[in-house]
């Protein structure tokens, strides 16, 4: 790093070295002349003793900046100049690279966000989605992998396999914070949601089991960090304040940790509401305790000593017994014999869910991979295009290269020069496409600062 700084102050270093060496020679010459040598002879000997001034300079320069870095810097400078000379070539090459790289990075960041990134929670690799395969003989609403709240509570008792089991449902509520009600994305969650995920508060507290005991008895909400920052300007006095959720007053008890945005990349919640308050959060919903209303996704955290397959096999006997018991419960719907058989043949299925649950992911995973493959091909084409351009330019540079070879440049040296060419071009292409998203990423910053005045 220090060496790179030396490159930028090399003019100053050079003139200092010149003065230093000049002083040495002059002193040596006058000393030798005192011994009786004629001046020209003294000057010759002084230079000889140093072993030649250019050699000394070159050696000192190697100290400032190691040889290959220095050569590389010169190569880059030369490349930049030659690119500036042939502008149309440079523009074409940079543009096609920028397009290729830009498209690939854009799609990759989407793939990464939606498909690859694990949730920012404690040990996301141990999370599994618990799903009911078969007929639940139930009504319901919501998207995928749904079960009822009481069955989730039953699953929470299976602590031979799970450290914890949470259930959640995404919904939209009318939220008013001292003003007009606005629709806000909310996540209705079981009381152990935050402790099971290992997500803490940035302010106040998160929801706990006590908030999810008696239906209607715990009117509290936790706000999402981003919502709190953008909609409430990060006001610290939000704790304890009353908000209206679908006209029901509730108390803000906390704000979640900054990185946490729920467990569904497609639906980032603005607030979390305990499942006990689901009747208030979802107008007209009174089936929290109904075993045959499927509306929540259920995620479990496997115990460290239990594998997914072990848990899946181990859960089936309990599950069969529960199915059997359910058919004898009061309120079990009247269904046909075939349907009853399908119900009894259901089984429980676990799938790894380190990225949480997402209907978006479910829908988009295949198209996204296809899109990603296409952009990769596009990048390949762009590279091919640039390679062709380089080839054409190479034959035009035949003369330059043979001149340099004739002047004594080694093949390796010329190869490095050409590599520097490609590197500079690739960097330029990357920078070209990097500059745009960076500007787009902060759209509301600029006007905000203007309004501030």
């Amino acid at each position, binding site marked *: 790093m*220090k060496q790179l700084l030396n490159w930028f102050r090399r003019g100053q270093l050079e003139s*200092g*070295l010149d*003065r*230093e*060496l000049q*002083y*040495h020679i*002059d*002193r*040596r010459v006058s000393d030798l002349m005192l011994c009786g040598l004629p001046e020209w002879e003294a000057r010759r000997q002084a230079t000889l*003793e*140093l*072993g*030649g001034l250019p*050699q*000394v300079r070159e*050696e*000192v320069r*190697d*100290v*400032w900046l190691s040889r290959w870095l220095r050569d590389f810097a010169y190569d880059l400078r030369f490349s930049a100049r030659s690119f500036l000379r042939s502008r149309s070539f440079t523009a074409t090459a940079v543009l096609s690279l920028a397009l290729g790289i830009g498209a690939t990075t854009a799609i990759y960041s989407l793939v990464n966000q939606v498909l690859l990134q694990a949730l920012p929670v404690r040990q996301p690799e141990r999370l599994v989605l618990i799903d009911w395969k078969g007929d639940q003989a139930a009504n319901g609403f919501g998207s995928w992998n749904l079960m009822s709240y009481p069955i989730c509570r039953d699953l929470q008792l299976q602590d031979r396999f799970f450290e914890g089991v949470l259930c959640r449902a995404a919904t939209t509520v009318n939220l008013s914070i001292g003003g007009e009600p606005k629709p806000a994305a909310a996540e209705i969650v079981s009381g152990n949601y935050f402790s099971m995920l290992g997500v803490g508060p940035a302010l106040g507290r998160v929801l706990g089991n006590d908030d999810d005991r008696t239906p209607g008895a715990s009117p509290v909400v936790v706000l999402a960090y981003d919502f709190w920052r953008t909609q409430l300007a990060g006001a610290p006095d939000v704790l304890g304040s009353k908000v209206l959720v679908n006209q029901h007053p509730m108390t803000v008890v906390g704000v979640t940790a900054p990185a946490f945005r729920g467990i569904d990349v497609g639906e980032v919640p603005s607030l979390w509401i305990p499942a006990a308050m689901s009747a208030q959060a979802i107008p007209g919903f009174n089936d929290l305790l109904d075993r045959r209303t499927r509306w929540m996704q259920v995620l479990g955290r496997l115990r460290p000593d239990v594998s997914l397959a072990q848990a899946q096999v181990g859960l089936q006997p309990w599950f069969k017994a529960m199915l059997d018991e359910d058919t004898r419960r009061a309120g079990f719907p009247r269904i046909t014999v075939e349907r009853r058989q399908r119900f009894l043949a259901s089984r429980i299925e676990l799938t790894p869910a380190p990225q949480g649950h997402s209907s978006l992911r479910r829908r988009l995973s295949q198209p996204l991979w296809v899109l990603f493959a296409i952009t990769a091909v596009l990048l390949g084409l762009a590279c091919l295009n640039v390679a062709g351009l380089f080839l054409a330019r190479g034959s035009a540079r035949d003369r330059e290269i043979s001149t340099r070879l004739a002047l004594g440049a080694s093949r390796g040296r010329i190869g490095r020069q050409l590599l520097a060419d490609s590197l500079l071009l690739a960097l330029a292409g990357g920078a070209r496409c990097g500059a745009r998203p960076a500007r787009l990423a902060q759209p509301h910053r600029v006007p905000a600062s203007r309004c501030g005045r």
Partner: protein
Amino acid sequence: MPSARFPIPQGTLDMLILQILSLEPAHGYGIAQRLEQISQSVVQVNQGSLYPALHRLEQKKWLHAEWKQSETGREAKFYSLTSSGRKQLGIEKDSWARLSGAVRLIFDEGNR
């Protein structure tokens, strides 16, 4: 003339420079002369390698360089030892003493 003088062993030039500068700050030519005087012309320092060494030591922050008026009235670049340079000199002296002691032991063994 050159046959009577030893070329300076690899790696000891840095140590000698540090030692000379630990007495008082000096410029490049002064260091070259002092090396010559102190070693009574036994050790031959290639003066060309003196300047790269000085710049290397300066870059390692063992030396501090400053332009000052020299004894002839002209400006010269004076080098002085920094505190980390002083520490380094201690380390190098130590390891040199251990090395030369070990070599002597081996020679003595052969003479017995």
